[in-house]
């Protein structure tokens, strides 16, 4: 029973991967459409990133001596956080947005999942350019430790489809969750060490720092660049979270992929 469920999910994912041209093309169109008729096009994604990073670096943190490393801290934090926030907020309404396709075609659900992953990744790529610019301007030296950050990025990308699947089904079966998730993601920016750091403070911050799973997904990208060493514990923890999410996602996809059409 459980095997059949997972097999059904893998079927869906397998045919989704075979149709990669579809979701790559659709994601490109999506990004293009959002910026069509604007002079700067997708560069607005970069500008938006700079605006946020600049606000934190120059307004929130003025006058401190360690501005250089704080800039790197915020730059990496925002890069990962924006990606997570955008992906999860979009995930909850994914199947509802794709209702026409789901009720009118036999495309596997993973096509929509990968389309969203692709969109988010393209957006994040613009922010990544901004992130690297800030890192170099703030005097962070390019080093082999950045490869650990790259590994962190890969781990995040590999975990994303599972998270999208889970949140998409959540949103389809419990429409209210769309608002819950979008609220949490907005507040989450402040509850997660995106622009504040732990550095010995106690109380609520301490709890938020340690018990917030997002912390660790930020750290696997941020820590190698800031300290030059691999964040082994965070990497292992994120890997474990990824495995749990994937197991759950395969079960949910296998169980509900043929039923979601009756729900939306």
């Amino acid at each position: 029973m459980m095997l059949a469920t997972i097999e059904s999910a893998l079927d869906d994912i397998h045919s989704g991967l075979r149709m990669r041209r579809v979701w790559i093309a659709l994601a490109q169109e999506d990004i293009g459409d959002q910026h069509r008729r604007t002079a700067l096009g997708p560069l607005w994604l970069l500008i938006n990133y700079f605006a946020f990073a600049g606000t934190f670096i120059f307004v929130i943190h003025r006058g401190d001596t360690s501005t250089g490393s704080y800039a790197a801290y915020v730059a990496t934090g925002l890069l990962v956080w924006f990606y997570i926030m955008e992906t999860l907020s979009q995930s909850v309404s994914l199947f509802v947005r794709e209702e026409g396709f789901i009720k009118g075609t036999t495309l596997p659900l993973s096509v929509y999942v990968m389309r969203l992953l692709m969109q988010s990744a393209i957006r994040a790529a613009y922010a990544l350019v901004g992130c690297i610019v800030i890192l170099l301007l703030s005097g962070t030296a390019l080093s082999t430790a950045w490869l650990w950050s790259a590994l962190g990025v890969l781990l995040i990308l590999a975990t994303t489809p599972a998270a999208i699947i889970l949140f998409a089904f959540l949103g389809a079966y419990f429409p209210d969750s769309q608002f819950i998730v979008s609220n949490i993601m907005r507040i989450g920016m402040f509850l997660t060490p995106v622009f504040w750091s732990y550095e010995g403070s106690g109380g609520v911050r301490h709890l938020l720092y340690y018990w917030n799973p997002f912390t660790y997904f930020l750290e696997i990208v941020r820590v190698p660049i800031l300290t030059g060493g691999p964040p082994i514990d965070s990497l292992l923890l994120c890997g474990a979270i990824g495995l749990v999410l994937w197991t759950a996602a395969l079960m949910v996809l296998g169980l509900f992929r043929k039923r979601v059409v009756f729900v939306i």
Partner: protein
Amino acid sequence: MVSIRVSNLGLVYRLRKKLTLAARDRRLPTGGRLEGKGRTQYVTALDGVNFELTAGDRLGLVGANGAGKTTLLKVLYGIYAPTSGSVEVEGRVDALFNISLGFRREATGRRNIVLRGLMNGWNMDEIEARMEDVIEFSELGDFIDLPFKTYSQGMAARLAFSVATSLDPEILLMDEWIGAGDPKFQDKARDRMSELAEKAGIIVLASHNHALLKKTCNKILELENGGVKSLHLAEEWAASA
């Protein structure tokens, strides 16, 4: 060899009372039978449907609104999974419902053809091979390189029709006979549809147009409330109706 074998097919789904504090959505499904009280209600959209089709068969589906025609087509296509009984389909299935689904306003006609082709599961070579034919049939000329949103409704419909019918169908499912455009294009569209119908191994066509069904189909399945009311050869049905 193409074939469709449907045995004892049933489709029952639960009407979900969504977990929400907002006012209840009181919309009801347009067809089927509604059973159950209170929190759980079930819709029986299809119940005990049996038929077999082999190469050369043209099945017409008739019945009142909500009898289950479209649902049956969607089960055959694979959008709905049956909840009881079985559907065995041999051959590639193409469907012509909702032919304008997924056209992108900002993309050019040409790009839309590519996107639609990819969604149909064609590879780039197949798309390239059909491209000129589709463009020519749609009579869009130079407009093909302009954004879809600049098209008139008729032009958009012509493009949708041209892409959707650019198939070599083994099994073709249709929800109503489709057509598009001005009278001249309609003639062309009719010819193209007849051609498709001749090429296809099996056709299942849901329609209210009895004259069309008599002309096209050799078998008629009449549905009522999700069940089979009668299954006739077309001549018998024409004589009795």
